[in-house]
């Protein structure tokens, strides 16, 4: 009998039983607990992870031959010139963070700029909204778009600042100088939204506060075809109160309208006749959160940590979701990029939301390119796609929150300084925000290393010279 008890087969049986019990224990834990065990990231690590994964979108979804970036991961999606602009900025950031090699980022950005200068279809320098990613030809009968061109130019100029003194800076400047901003006024005091070969100018103008600031800034600061600085005062700054806070609001009330321009322009110190747009965006973001909270009894998606009404995909297609003040179109769809991209305005609230989305819905909402576009718990609807511009804005705003690198570099661009001065935007404690630029200083030159020639400055060397 004893020999039977101690036989190898009974020992094996015991071991098997113990393992089975352990396995059952592990499997009985909720998945979230297992995920928590898997990795616990600090706030900064989480933000960097989102940034890094989002940048991968621009590596994978850009055409290897032209560099043009697809609008979304939807099959058959054309390239979007705005997404391509964000791609230039994201690649520069990715390179700086060491996630992409210098060579790879340099060559992809250079290729994209060469395509933009030589092959991408444009009208008076204004690129068509959607282009064939392989050829750069206009597709979907799209319009030569003012705002999308501005976002591209902003991305290109920013990349030029990251690769100072290299052909990237020169090409970006050439593309910028080619744009005839005056033409897009269509003899009015407002910038038109676009132009089509068959029908001419669109009957829509950038007439009120929105993402138009970046467009105005580049148009007024242009060294070749500037629009009169007086036009800065022509667009409306509609103001309304939400929960006792005054906000200069955009028509849709979408978060992205408060973010796009400020992904590039540092408004923290700038004052526009009593309006500080940074503070305004902060207030608009808090209003957006509050609006979601107030509507949380109606929609399961909304909550203390689940907010972010901005233009995104939804169960009924792409919509300019937004909150009050503004049109406030909403149906319970939240875009994580909305709250994430406000991290520079409302760090505490945004990180709380990001962490909530990441820790609770990671399996459905997070993928290889960061957060997928949006979700709606009421309709159990989860976007399966990533949108280039949505991934891009998150990358830039996180970068600004974690060090303000984009702001620092972008504000060094002479055209931006020219716009600040021309529009008399006051910097706290100073009459003129920037010393007056001489005409010659608007041309490309090294500003980071005064007194050094290009050859002496290691940051100006082309990639093959950098070991």
């Amino acid at each position, binding site marked *: 009998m004893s020999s039977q008890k101690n036989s190898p087969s009974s020992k094996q049986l015991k071991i098997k039983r113990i393992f089975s019990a352990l396995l059952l224990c592990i499997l009985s834990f909720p998945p979230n607990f297992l995920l928590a065990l898997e990795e616990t990231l600090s706030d900064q690590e989480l933000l960097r992870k989102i940034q890094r994964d989002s940048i991968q979108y621009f590596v994978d979804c850009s055409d290897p031959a032209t560099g043009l970036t697809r609008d979304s991961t939807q099959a058959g999606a054309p390239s979007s010139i705005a997404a391509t602009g964000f791609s230039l900025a994201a690649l520069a950031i990715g390179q700086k963070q060491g996630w992409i090699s210098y060579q790879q980022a340099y060559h992809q950005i250079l290729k994209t700029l060469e395509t933009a200068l030589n092959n991408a279809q444009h009208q008076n320098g204004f690129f068509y909204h959607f282009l064939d990613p392989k050829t750069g030809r206009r597709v979907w009968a799209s319009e030569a778009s003012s705002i999308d061109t501005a976002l591209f130019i902003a991305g290109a100029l920013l990349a030029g600042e990251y690769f100072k003194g290299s052909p990237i800076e020169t090409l970006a400047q050439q593309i910028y100088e080619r744009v005839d901003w005056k033409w897009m006024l269509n003899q009015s005091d407002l910038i038109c939204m676009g132009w089509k070969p068959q029908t001419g100018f669109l009957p829509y103008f950038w007439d009120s506060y929105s993402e138009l600031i970046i467009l105005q800034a580049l148009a007024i600061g242009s060294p070749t075809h500037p629009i009169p600085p007086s036009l800065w005062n022509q667009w409306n700054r509609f103001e309304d109160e939400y929960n006792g806070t005054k906000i200069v609001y955009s028509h849709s009330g979408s978060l992205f309208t408060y973010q796009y321009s400020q992904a590039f322009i540092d408004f923290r110190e700038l004052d526009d006749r009593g309006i500080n747009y940074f503070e305004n965006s902060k207030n608009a973001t808090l209003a957006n959160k509050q609006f979601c909270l107030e509507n949380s009894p109606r929609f399961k998606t909304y909550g203390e940590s689940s907010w972010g009404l901005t233009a995104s995909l939804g169960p009924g297609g*792409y919509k300019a979701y937004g909150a009050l003040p503004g049109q406030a179109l909403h149906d319970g769809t939240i875009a994580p990029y909305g709250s994430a991209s406000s991290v520079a305005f409302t760090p505490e609230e945004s990180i709380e939301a990001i962490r909530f989305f990441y820790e609770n819905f990671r399996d459905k909402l997070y993928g290889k390119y960061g957060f997928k576009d949006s979700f709606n718990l009421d309709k159990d609807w989860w976007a399966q796609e990533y949108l280039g511009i949505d991934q891009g804005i998150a990358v830039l705003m996180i970068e600004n929150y974690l060090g303000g690198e984009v702001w620092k570099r972008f504000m060094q661009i002479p055209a931006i300084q020219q716009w600040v001065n021309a529009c008399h935007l006051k910097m706290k404690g100073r009459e003129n925000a920037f010393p007056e630029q001489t005409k010659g200083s608007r041309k490309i030159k090294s500003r980071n290393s005064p007194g050094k020639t290009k050859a002496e400055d290691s940051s100006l060397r082309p990639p093959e010279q950098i070991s």
Partner: protein
Amino acid sequence: MQSKNRRRHFLIDKPFQFRYMSWVLLILLIISATLIIALHFGIWGYALKEFSDESTRNALKMTSRLNDYEIARYQSASEVTLPKLAFIRETELFSNRQREIIQEILSKTRQRTIFLGIPLLFFIGWGSIFISHKVAGPLYHFNRIFKELKTKNLTARVRLRKYDEGKKTAETFNQAVLELDRSIARMKKAAREAGEHAKLPNELTEELSQFKTTQD
């Protein structure tokens, strides 16, 4: 009024002309077949790919998406657009896209045809040179021999290559020159022999002496 010199019969040398006709037809057949195959497979290859169920579905999705983008951006439109009107706009966008695709297909096919056409042009050029050299070579030889004959050199003969055209003509021509050569040679010999016994006019002897024959 018909010219007396007008050629009434076009088949002068049947084997020669039929042979040339066969060559030209063969070349044209190759060119046409290549172009037809390229166009057919080019257009249909792209068309089948671009209008597959999957591509059409994706295009329709993008149509709807782009319409949504327009509505989202041009806020005023969202206030007035009814579902049916949105559908009309989507149809318009889709139709635009289909036209772009067709244009793209034709453009790609044109590029492919040009791509194929360039080597074909070289082939035709090379082929015509190859074929015509069989005629051009003999003509050159005839021309050279006529120049020799002009200098009264009766020893010159037309010598053609194995696959040259006009061999029979050359043979007949050489026979004629040979006969003339022999005849002049005989005359020269007769003049020489007669010169010893009778006085011949200087002009005749001088003229005969200018001829170069195979007997000299």
